[in-house]
């Protein structure tokens, strides 16, 4: 039952990240919020393994880490004004 409570807390924190995505004053705020959301999802996957017992979720967590990294690097490169293959 504590696992359920922790999952609710993490899902609420994801909505906090969505708040920052919607109302962020600058474009960098939104990117920071997306980066944080990607890390939070990994924690949600880790807790869902304990809650439901489905073991493939750890693979989704690892893949999500790598995809979040690539997305953040791409957005940072877009911010510096360079092209993506430069």
């Amino acid at each position, binding site marked *: 039952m504590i696992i359920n409570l922790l999952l609710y807390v993490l899902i609420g924190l994801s909505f906090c*990240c969505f708040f920052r995505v919607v109302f962020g004053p600058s474009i*960098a705020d939104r990117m920071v919020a997306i980066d944080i959301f990607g890390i939070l999802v990994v924690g949600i996957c880790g807790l869902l393994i304990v809650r439901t017992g489905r073991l493939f979720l750890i693979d989704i967590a690892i893949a999500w880490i790598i995809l979040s990294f690539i997305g953040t*690097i791409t957005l940072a490169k877009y911010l510096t004004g360079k092209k993506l293959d430069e």
Partner: protein
Amino acid sequence: MNNTISLIFFIIGVAFDLFGCIGLIRLPDVYNRLQSATKSVTLGTCSILFGLFIKFGFSAIGMKALIAIPLLFFVSTVAAHALVRGSYIFGTKLWDETIIDDYKDVQK
């Protein structure tokens, strides 16, 4: 016994995530927000994965969780560094009450 220890690690991890997201909402600046959020949220998620390793032991899923910890650590740090450099070059303004800006001298 393992369940209790892993539950303690889960609670510590969710608490660090909570502090990081409070910092993400409350702090006044992009750089402050990234400073707060990236570090503590990364530490919290690594704590959750370590609790997963303690719960499942040296099985396949436990080893995958153990491998994901250094991956998450390095990847998140590098991404945060690239993001803050990009947002500085893009011209995002610092907070009004910022005292010192060392990176401006490096740029010239």
